[in-house]
């Protein structure tokens, strides 16, 4: 696992089974805002890393084999160690109705794929009302 970088202001956990997406998110967040990004390739791995690292935000893919996004989200909320970490869903479903449905799960926000990961930090800040870095 990556160590937190000096000067990094936020720690992000991305849970996505697609390695290319992990790579690009990691690069974009790091390049644009020097954020540290942890990666997990499955819901189960994500739960363990979240509990251990307690990131500032979790980016969670909706469609994953075995444990999907909503199931992972429920497990995160059920664990006192992770229940307060904001979760943003990543989905390739672009229609408003789909986004609205996902929002009803209680997540902090939904970001539609594909995205430009250079702009991702700004999007996260907007959703979580963080002041811009």
């Amino acid at each position, binding site marked *: 696992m990556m160590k937190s970088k000096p000067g990094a202001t936020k720690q992000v956990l991305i849970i996505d089974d697609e390695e290319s997406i992990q790579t690009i998110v990691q690069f974009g967040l790091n390049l644009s805002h020097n954020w540290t990004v942890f990666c997990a390739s499955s819901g189960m791995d994500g739960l363990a890393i979240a509990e251990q690292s307690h990131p500032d935000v979790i980016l969670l893919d909706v469609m994953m084999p075995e444990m999907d996004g909503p199931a992972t989200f429920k497990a995160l909320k059920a664990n006192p160690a992770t229940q307060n970490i904001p979760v943003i869903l990543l989905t390739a479903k672009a229609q408003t109705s789909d986004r609205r449905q996902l929002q009803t799960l209680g997540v902090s926000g939904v970001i539609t794929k*594909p995205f430009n990961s250079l702009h991702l930090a700004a999007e996260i800040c907007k959703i979580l009302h963080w002041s811009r870095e």
Partner: protein
Amino acid sequence: MRILLVEDDLMLVNVLTKSLAAQNYSVDSVRDGSTAWEYLTHIDYDLILLDVLLPHLDGVSLCRRIRAEQNETPILIMTAQHNSRARVRGLDAGADDYVVKPFDIEELMARIRALIRRSGRDLSPILQLGQLVFDPGHCTTSYGGMPLSLSAKEYALLDLFFHEPNHVFSIPELLDSLWSSEEYPAEATVRSHIRRLRAKLIDAGAPQDYISNVHGRGYFLNPNGGLNAPGKQNILIDEQQLQPLKKEPNQSLDAQYQRFLAETWHQFQPKVLKDVEQLEQLLEPLQYPQDSVPDLDAAHLLAHRLKGTLGLFQQPSAMSSAAFLEAFLEAFMEESQKGSRESCVHPSDSQTSLSSAFLDLKGHLQRIKETLQSDLPLTAPSTPHDTELQPVFFCISDDESFQQAMITAAKTLPLTLVTMSNRFLISDRLWNQLPPQRPDGIIVSLYHPASSDSGLEPKLLEPKLEQLNHLRTVYAPNDPPTLFLLGESIDFATRLESVRYGARYLLNKNQQPSRLLQTCLALLPPPKTFPKALMVDDDEPWLQFMALQLQNSGFQIKTLSDPHDFEPMLVVTQPDILILDVKIPQVSGLELCQTIRSDMHWQSLPVIFVSALTDQKTQASAFSAGADDYLCKPIQSKDLAHRMMTRLQRNQTLMHWRLDNGCAMFQE
């Protein structure tokens, strides 16, 4: 800036695409409204240029749909209708502006610029820092209202200073940033450009030290003119003064990101191609729904994943095909659950319609594959002109004179050299200062007591090499850069230890830096490609089976069962490797091999025999006919693929060594 052009008139599309490209916009063009909608649901554009009369979904309806989705991308409508009603309809549907066809291209460009500016998406149409005004769109500058007449190099210098205000640029840094590796001006040339630029600024009214010099360090832009004491750490302007730049990531970030995307795309292409092939296999049962049941969940997940990945890598056409496959599978699954699988797409004639839908699916899969295969990495060697494609080397050493010699040598070669100190091997805390570009090779000097170089001390080799190995995996865990160690003398144990920790080559440090770099360049693995193989065998089922398996291992395969077509096929295919059977009717494989070896052109083509004949005599005949390898059937496709790949790599390395046999490997 990315623009979506929605227009069905091809002539106009050509003209607009060229004009927009000339203004540095990147353009995706589509010919109907529904495809545009598909693109828009997956790609974030900076502006939409929209025709009104379009097939499938007209411009006004598309506009309405975009706004209903709370998408606020600026929309400029192009209409041939002169009456105000048509324009009002467009604007009421959510368009931001319109032009009436035929229109003046310059006016259209101005309207596009204005819309992008108003939307706040532009980085900055005009940047201002105190009295200095910089207009990147038109490549003009002025100071205090006075236009500055700058040469291209002076403009580039000012651009560099302007965009990195908190940075003192050393002369070597300026040389690296503004001059190509084939030019190699003296430091005095750089100073003379700075003098001229400074003089022009002073003529326009800027203070004497507007471009200031920090003794021994370099130059920087000092808009406060004399307020800052040179040499202080915090000497520069507050970045807040450059507000327009803070709106969006700056252009160099964008360029870095695009470069990274391109590199990562090449890295992941084979994997994506495998996903497509797996999806193809999963969909195969749809062709015969009576006989087999497809794994719809797996296929749906795969199509969904492909859509996301292709979108992220900005491949709109392939992504659109993946989206079609996903939507089809979703509908199919819903209908299957209802128990009426056949009626999901074409309710009228279930069986025939499903077959035709299957053909549609195959078409979309083919389109994705074509995108993947047409965009393969370049195999041509890089030239000094395409610096973006040049290999990058990190040179890690604390020996400044060695580093300087390497930098000088690198300027004459088609490569980019980044020098760094051994500090990077002590702690990964410094790694956030690493350049974003993945190096192709890392060169590290080993310590030697007789030399002045404080390189890696053999006693401390293990922890350092572990760190070094870790560093190599930071950029691309699956494809780490090649590690070159340099030394003057080294024992076998150290060599073994080095190799264990990932060193690929140990080179003699006592040679000219240019020669050393040339050697490293020649020893880099070739760019990832899909080697072409020609397979000749009269056993067609075996041939077809093996071809399919080898394709999965990353080869492009051409097969041939009739040796009469061998010569034209060889010429057309220009294979990288040839696989021959021994016993082929009419002309034997041995004869084919001898024939091609009699032609100088095919001397270096690797030839592997794969035959059921296991006797020593046949194998000896094959080698004397010119074979490079001989394998006996039955053989696993993985073993054959491995042999082929190894043979190709060996051939590549040998060719380099033949070309440059003066490059000595490190000797004890």
